């Protein structure tokens, strides 16, 4: 299955190879990702194999080890496939009705 819109946003944030934790992603997404859903979303992405996570070796200020997420090869490909599908469908539904 292709990643959903929210999943795509999360994958986009990780696409540059950055390793981020959930709250960082929420803040970086400028409101596109919510605090209540981000970890359920990331867990789903992890189950699908699009991201991997590792626990912080030393817990930071909250006193609980954070999970740091990174995008995988499958995640990159899923994102690319989604973009491609998006462009094909968008072009196909252009007002002129003509293929691009």
């Amino acid at each position, binding site marked *: *299955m*292709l990643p*959903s*819109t929210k999943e795509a946003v999360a994958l986009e944030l990780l696409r540059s190879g950055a390793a981020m*934790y*959930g*709250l960082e992603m*929420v803040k970086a997404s400028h409101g596109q990702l919510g*605090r*209540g*859903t981000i*970890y*359920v979303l*990331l*867990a*789903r992405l*992890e189950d699908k194999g699009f991201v991997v*996570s590792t*626990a912080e070796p030393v817990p*930071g*200020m*909250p*006193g*609980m*080890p*954070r*999970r740091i997420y990174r995008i995988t090869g*499958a995640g990159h*490909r*899923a994102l*690319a*496939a*989604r973009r*491609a*599908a*998006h462009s*094909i*469908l*968008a*072009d*196909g*539904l*252009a*007002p002129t*009705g*003509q*293929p*691009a």
Partner: protein
Amino acid sequence: MTKTSRFAAVFSITYACTLPGALLLLVGIWEYPLVAWYAQHDALWYGMIVYFFNFLAALLFALAVVFWKNPEVRPAPGNLLVRIAAFVCPRKTYERVFAQTIADMREEYFEALKLGHHAHARWIWLRGHILFWVCAWLLCGTALLHIVRTILAAFYPQPKPQSHATTSVSRKPETDVSDVGEAKKASLARGDFRSGHAAPISGGMRCASSPSGLLPADKFVSGETPDVATSVTIPLWLAALLGALAAIALIDRLFAPAVRWWLRRRVNRAIDELNQRLKLTIPPFKLARRRQLIEQLMFDPEVLKAVEDEAKARDEPKSVTHARAKRYAREIVPAFSAYTYFRIGAGLAKWLSTALYRVRVGAFEEAELYKVPPDASVVFVINHRSNMDYVLVTYLVSQSSALSYAVGEWARVWALQGLIRAMGGYFVRRDSSNALYRKVLARYVHMATASGVTQAVFPEGGLTRDGRLRPPKLGLLSYMVSGFDPNGARDIVFVPVGINYDRVLEDRVLTAAASTPAGERPRFAFNPLVLTAWIAKGLWQRIRGTWHRYGYACVSFGRPLSLRGYLAERGVDFRALPETQRFAEIDQLGQRLMREVGHVVPALPVSLVASAILAGGDHGLSSLELKGAVFALMRRLKAAGAHVHIPRHDQEYAVDVGLRMLLLRHLVVVEDGVYRPHTGDTPLLAFYANAIAHLLPAEAAGVAA
């Protein structure tokens, strides 16, 4: 302590302490202007003013102490949520979702506090708690959706894509799919990007709906709202079935793993605590799951070889023999539960032992016993006088270790079987000559011993019928020691244990079985009605307060025998010996252990008095003669190095106690001040006398009735 309770405490103490001063002021002991003022005004008003100021001062003081620059240490926000999530959720879900949500809340909360935004911090706290439950609902919903989708997929399988892209959502009939990159589009629609062929696709596709909501709304032509989904109608029974299955799946996937994880965590913690307390730690083998142990046993090379041999000998498929061997393994392997053993079993054993007997520890080679290395496989070798032996030794050893017993197949009855398994006991068919069964049992006992499991064995192989020690049976002993490596890391240490009772519960049954003709299987005249009547009578006596215990039960622990030391002394290695020679050596070891056990069997009052009365014969003994005979017996036993238990360190009291028990049971009768054995009960008297007969070889012949 919260601020409120601290405030209340400080205020009360201050007010109580200052009140006497205020009262003194009130009665005008001090020369104070107010007193003069009081003299001119009403006393009530004056008193009220003093009280008011006293109250106000105490209040201000308490407020100042508690709230003025007095920081309060509070747990981090979300502490309760952490506990709830850790209790309810599987570990993976807890770590990936809930712990992260709470960590986010804490981070933002502390950040807000740092900036002095207290109101915002409170809002973050509230929002964090709401988000926690939102996450929980989302997870439950996701799990349910997954289950429903799986079930629906089973009922309505999706058609495989043929020449063009098809998805689970419906399309308008006039959908026009262009001819560009058909294969790639099909791959794309399936989400087959893992293959790496999906990326950039050129060309266009005219499609009325988007597979997964990919398109922005403005891309749709107005007035052409696509038909994005088809409703599936399912019958009510199917909906109910799906609901039930979803509930089962929810319990199975979410609730049951959480409960299991929580219980396992508790058990592990309890075992860690236990291992710190116990002198002989519980080895991992004993804590391993029963299923794993059975598998381990079934894949033991020797068991596999025995299966092969048996299959050949019986000319049957190997799978049939293997299944039979597995049945044996299931029958033998215990399912030890530390909780059952230490919380239920040990408690019950203590209650039952102390309810029935005055339990005493006789000889105890303390210095030698404490020298036993903690990682050694300790085997308690016990004489078997009563079924109470299991209970009594479990109670006395529960402070040091968890014992594993071999239990006869008689105990394989519902409820009792489960309890015995949970207590770490393993069942043995004592008279089985089946080679495969013996091999499975041998390998289990060997594995347990090699893994350091503390065991208790009754080398006599059954209850004594006439009170004497029986010759050792070498089956279990040979399984334990045959594969012993004298140079290995783990030693086997045998601890001889001698038990004696003033009254054996099943003595009449045993002595009746002793009269079975040679060559026949002894018959135990067990009657459930008799047992029920006995229990009812005991309970009735307890209720009325007329219950008396059955005298003394004494357990002695002898000097431990290290197998490594024994083999070095004899210069042998069991593994290197041929079979006949090995059995001869094991027989020697068994004889030695039985001698050690016999040596530590304690002499109790009933045994002493029974011996003296039987020695007196039909002539009988007067009270004085009886005392003299028992005292002489005590001296001889002590001289022979035996342990004589003299209650209250009073020899006369010991004679009185022993005699009273025998008189109450009508085993001894008194006529004209002369004590004689009761006719017909001589075997029962001999049963008790024989318990210490081996300690006095010269008298043994005279006692054997």
